C-alpha cells in the first residue's frame, strides 16, 4: 500500500463499505467523507416505499416508549448516588429475610 493510501486508509474503508469512491485529486477529509455517507443514506431513504411506513412505525414506537412509558411509567426506582443505592438495596435485602414459618 502506498504511503499516500495508507494515510487515508480509514477513509477508504468507510467509503468502500458504502460503495463510494473518491476521485484521485480529491482530498480526503472528514467533511467530504461525512457528506458522501450522509448522501448515501438520504438517497436510500428517498427511494424507499414500504420502508417509509416502517420508519413511521419505528418512530412512533420509540416516541411512545421513551417519551411516554419511560417518563410516566418507568421512573428509576433507586434514587441517589451509588452509595445510597447500595445502602437502600442492602436494607431491603436484609429486611426481606424469611423467618421459618413452616419448618419440615
Amino acid at each position, binding site marked *: 500500500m502506498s504511503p499516500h493510501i495508507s494515510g487515508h486508509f480509514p477513509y477508504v474503508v468507510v467509503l468502500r463499505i458504502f*460503495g463510494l469512491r473518491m476521485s484521485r485529486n480529491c482530498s480526503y477529509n472528514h467533511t467530504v467523507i461525512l457528506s458522501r455517507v450522509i448522501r448515501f443514506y438520504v438517497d436510500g431513504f428517498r427511494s424507499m416505499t414500504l420502508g417509509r411506513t416502517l420508519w413511521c412505525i419505528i418512530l412512533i414506537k420509540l416516541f411512545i416508549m421513551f417519551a411516554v412509558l419511560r417518563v410516566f411509567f418507568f421512573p428509576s426506582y433507586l434514587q441517589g448516588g451509588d452509595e445510597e443505592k447500595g445502602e437502600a438495596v442492602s436494607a431491603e435485602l436484609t429486611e426481606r429475610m424469611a423467618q421459618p414459618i413452616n419448618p419440615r
Partner: protein
Amino acid sequence: MDAIDSSLVDWSRAQFALTAMYHWLFVPLTLGLGVVMAIMETLYVRTGREFWKQTAKFWMKLFGINFAMGVATGIILEFEFGTNWSNYSWFVGDIFGAPLAIEGILAFFMESTFIAVMYFGWNKVSKRAHLASTWLTIIGATISAWWILVANAWMQHPVGMEFNPDTVRNEMVDFAAVAFSPVAVVKFCHTVSSSWVLGAVFVVGVSCWYLLRGRHREFALSSIRVAAWFGLFAALITAHTGHQSGRDIAMYQPMKLAAAEGLYEGGTEQALVLGGLLRPGADWTAASGDDRFLLKVEMPYALSYLATHDLQGYVPGIRNLLEGGYKLPDDSVALSAEEMMKRGRMAIDALAQYRAAADAETKATALATLEENFPWFGYGYLKSPGELVPPVPLTFYSFRIMVVLGGYFIALFAGLLLLGQRVTRWKWAQLAVVLTIPLAWLASQAGWVVAEVGRQPWSIQGLLPNVAAISKLDVGSVQTTFFIFLILFTLLLVAELGIMGKAIAAGPETDQTSA
C-alpha cells in the same frame, strides 16, 4: 420481616413475561430469516441468476418488516429492570450491565451500517460487498443475541463473579468464565439453531401458501428446497443442543429437570416420560399417596442416560431435592432445603452485621460467615421448602410441546426434501405446511417457558429469589402497566401482521425473471 405481597411478585413476573414473550416473537424470525436471505443472495452471487436476486430481495423485505416491528420491543425489558427489579439490577452489578452495554453498542453500529448497505446499496456497491453486508447484518444480530444469552445464562448458573458486601453488588472477576460458561455456550447454540428452524418453517410455510394459490411456482419450489435443507440441518442441531441443554439443567438446575419430567421421587435407572397427562391439582411440594400422573408413556432408563450418560445414573426427583441426603457427582452429600435455608439466613444476617459493624473484628467475623454461606444466600428468603418447586404442569407440558414439535420439524423438512416437486400435487401437504408456521413460534415460546418458569423461584439461581429481587411497588401500578402493554403490543402485532400479510400477498418480483 418486611412482607412482600405475593401478588406483587406474580404481577411483576407476568409483566416481564408478557414483554419478553412479545419481544421473542420477532427475534427468532430475525435470526432465522436473516440466514435464509443471505443464503439466497449467496446463490445469486455464485450463479449470477437474476431470479435469486429477486428471491433474496423478497425475503429481505419480510426480514425488514419483522426487524422494524421488533426494534425497541426489548427496550421495555431494560426499563423494567430499573423499575420493577431494582434490587436485582443493583445486585447483579456489571455482570448484567457489561454484556448488555456491549450488545447495545455493537448492535447499533453493525446494524445501522450494514442494514443500510443491504437495503440501499443494491446498485451502489459491488455484488460481493453487498453480499458481505447481508451476512454481516445477520452475524451482527446473532452476536447481539450472544450477549443477551450470556446475561441470561449467568442468571441460571452464576459463575465468574465475586460478591462485594461493601457495595452489595456482584463483581466480575473472570470475564471469560461469564462469556463462555458452558451454559451460555449451549444456550446460545440451542437458541440460535432453534431460531433458524423457525425461519425455515416460515419460509417453507409462505412458499406453500403460494403453491396453494397457484402463484410463483418456481420461486416457491426454490425457496422450499433451500429452506428445507437449511431447516433440516438446523433442526438436527437443535435436537442435539436441546439434549445438551437437558444435561446442563441436570447438572446445574436439577429442580428444573425434575419439574420438566414430572419426577417427584427420583432414583437410579430412571425412565423418560415421552408423553403423559398430569393429575390436575396434584400437590408437587409434599409427599402424598396419589399418583401424580393420570397416564404416561415412558422410555426405560432414558432419563438416567440423558441426565448422566449412564443407564444406571441417579436422577433426583423433587422430594429428593427438598430432603437432600443423596450423593452428588462430586461424592459430597446433598443438603436438605431446610439446611440450605438456614445457611442462607446466616449469610443474610452476616451481611447485615458486616454493614452495621463499627469495629474491624466484628466486620471480619461477619465477613467470614458471609463468605462461608454465600452459596446459599438466596435460600434465606424462602419461607418454606415448597417454594423451591416451580409450577410443574406448565414446565412439564411446555417441555413436551417443544420436543414433540422438534421431532415434527425434522420430519417436515425431510418430507419436503423427499417430495421435491411432487409437493405441488398435494394440496393437503401444502396446507399442513402453511398451518405449521405458528407451531414454530409455539415451540420457541415453549422453550423459554421451560427455561424461565422451570427455574422459579429464582431470579438468580441460588442467590436471589424473585421475592428479594423485585422493587416494592404498588401492585396496582404494575397491573396498570401490564394492561397498557397488552393493548399496545396487541395493536403493534396487528399492524405487523397486516403489513407482513400485504407484502406476502403482493409476492416476489421473480416472475418476470424466472422464465
